[in-house]
């Protein structure tokens, strides 16, 4: 569970702090351009690092400095609680005069109050648990590379636990029309646009076969005519997803039959149900799941949004954390004052501000106040 996310000098986030401790589910609302998606982008930077992207130029660009202010560092800090231990990871970048690519100014990982490693520009100091300070490992590395993906880890040490958690965060803004049913491998790390959905499906079932029961239960609840999902091998190393539905034939006497539909032919909303099913199954399979879903209601019918959002909130309420953004009244109404955060930005020259909805004392219907533009952070 994320306790705190701090971002400075990155796009519209300046001295921006999200405090999320003990919040199993949180809704981010705010006008267009208020910074909701930039929060997602900040999390993506951290996730890319954990998934192995270590070249700074592939993580952040000079244009990502708030208002082009390269005279101050760009900073990301995340504080996470995993199995009772607090992990704090910090990375700061700078762009010295004459540089085209940002470099690492500072990087630290602390576990349970003890440093795992610290770094200042090229100099890395790797702590050894229980050893004297002089037995630490010190080495220098390219300042255009991040250390986290490079430092050697061993199973179940703090570095491994934190990095795996960060890598397996589910950060989603699916583009259903781009999602096909074919896969050539397996993964537990879906892309933000979920175009590798089929590989995620394969990976999830390979690692946790029981996940299919959860997927099946959810999908049959939202699509009662669905029968099953097949993922047969169609080539030497590829598979393809098919979903079958029960259809009632207009014959005499009436009969039923199965209609098998290639995954890519499902509607955008049906694909979102599929993604939701995998998120629910992944949350069951992971002890401390985290999901940030940017506008999960985008492709859903009004009557589907309420149960869709509540199902996601429920899946993460025991030890996990679910964050979402929305402009949809039905989705917004499924959260309460204590778990809704309002982002606001007065102009493109000013940074995003975040406030808990409960502090704003919105009178009457929240959605009505949002429509009228009366909710100000």
């Amino acid at each position, binding site marked *: 569970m994320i306790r705190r996310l701090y971002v400075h000098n990155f796009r519209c986030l300046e001295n921006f702090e999200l405090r999320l401790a003990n919040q199993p589910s949180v809704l981010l609302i705010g006008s267009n351009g208020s910074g909701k998606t930039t929060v997602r982008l900040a999390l993506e930077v951290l996730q890319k690092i954990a998934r192995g992207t270590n070249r700074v130029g592939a993580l952040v660009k000079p244009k990502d400095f708030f208002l082009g202010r390269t005279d101050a560092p760009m900073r990301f800090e995340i504080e996470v609680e995993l199995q009772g231990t607090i992990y704090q990871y910090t990375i700061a970048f700078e762009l010295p005069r004459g540089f085209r690519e940002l470099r690492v100014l500072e990087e630290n990982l602390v576990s349970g109050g003890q440093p795992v490693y610290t770094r200042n520009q090229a100099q890395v100091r790797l702590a050894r648990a229980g050893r004297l300070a002089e037995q630490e490992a010190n080495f220098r590395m390219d300042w255009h590379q991040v250390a986290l993906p490079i430092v050697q880890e061993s199973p179940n040490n703090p570095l491994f636990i934190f990095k795996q958690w960060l890598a397996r965060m589910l950060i989603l803004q699916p583009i259903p029309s781009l999602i096909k049913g074919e896969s050539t491998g397996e993964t537990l790390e879906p892309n933000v646009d979920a175009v590798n959905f089929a590989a995620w499906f394969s990976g999830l079932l390979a690692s946790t076969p029981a996940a299919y029961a959860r997927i099946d*239960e*959810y999908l049959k*609840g*939202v699509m*009662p005519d669905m029968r099953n999902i097949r993922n047969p091998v169609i080539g030497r190393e590829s598979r393809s997803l098919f979903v079958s539905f029960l259809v009632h034939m207009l014959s005499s006497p009436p009969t039923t039959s199965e209609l098998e539909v290639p995954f890519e032919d499902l509607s955008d909303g049906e694909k979102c149900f599929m993604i939701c099913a995998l998120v*629910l199954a992944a949350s069951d399979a992971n002890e401390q799941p985290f999901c940030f879903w940017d506008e999960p209601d985008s492709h859903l*019918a009004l*009557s*589907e949004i*309420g*149960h869709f959002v*509540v*199902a996601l*909130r*429920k*899946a993460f*309420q025991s030890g996990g954390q679910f964050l979402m953004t929305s402009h949809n*009244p039905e989705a917004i*109404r*499924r*959260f*309460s*004052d204590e778990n809704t955060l309002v982002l606001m930005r007065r102009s493109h020259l000013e940074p995003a501000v975040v406030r808990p909805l409960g502090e704003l004392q919105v009178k*009457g*219907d*929240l*959605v009505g106040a949002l429509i009228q533009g009366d909710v100000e952070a």
Partner: protein
Amino acid sequence: MTNRHQPHVLVLPEDDANRQIANGFLMGLDQPTLKQIQVLPPAGGWKAVLHEFESNHVVGMDRYSGRYMVLLIDFDGQAGRLNVVKQKIPQHLQERVFFLGWGHNLLRHNEVEIERLRRHVRPILFRAT
């Protein structure tokens, strides 16, 4: 989508506070039953709940015999308000309409109503375990 031909529940909250109370109730339901309940937008006052019910929901309840409605109303300790509300519900629908409120003096009413709700709605929203 809620299957309108199966038993289902619509919750009509008086205001935003009651909407949030309904959210807490939803979080306690099993996932498969979430589709059988919809929380409607806050009506904007107890009189607005009645107006909304009479204008938009009587017809729906007549059309769908499996539809139940829960009206979340602040009675503000006024027993008279409860009677006014009850009288507005057509006789033939009274068995499928429930009133829950939070006025202290009317908690006894809540107990009776919750028991009635449990009897009728439990099979819809809570699976046998």
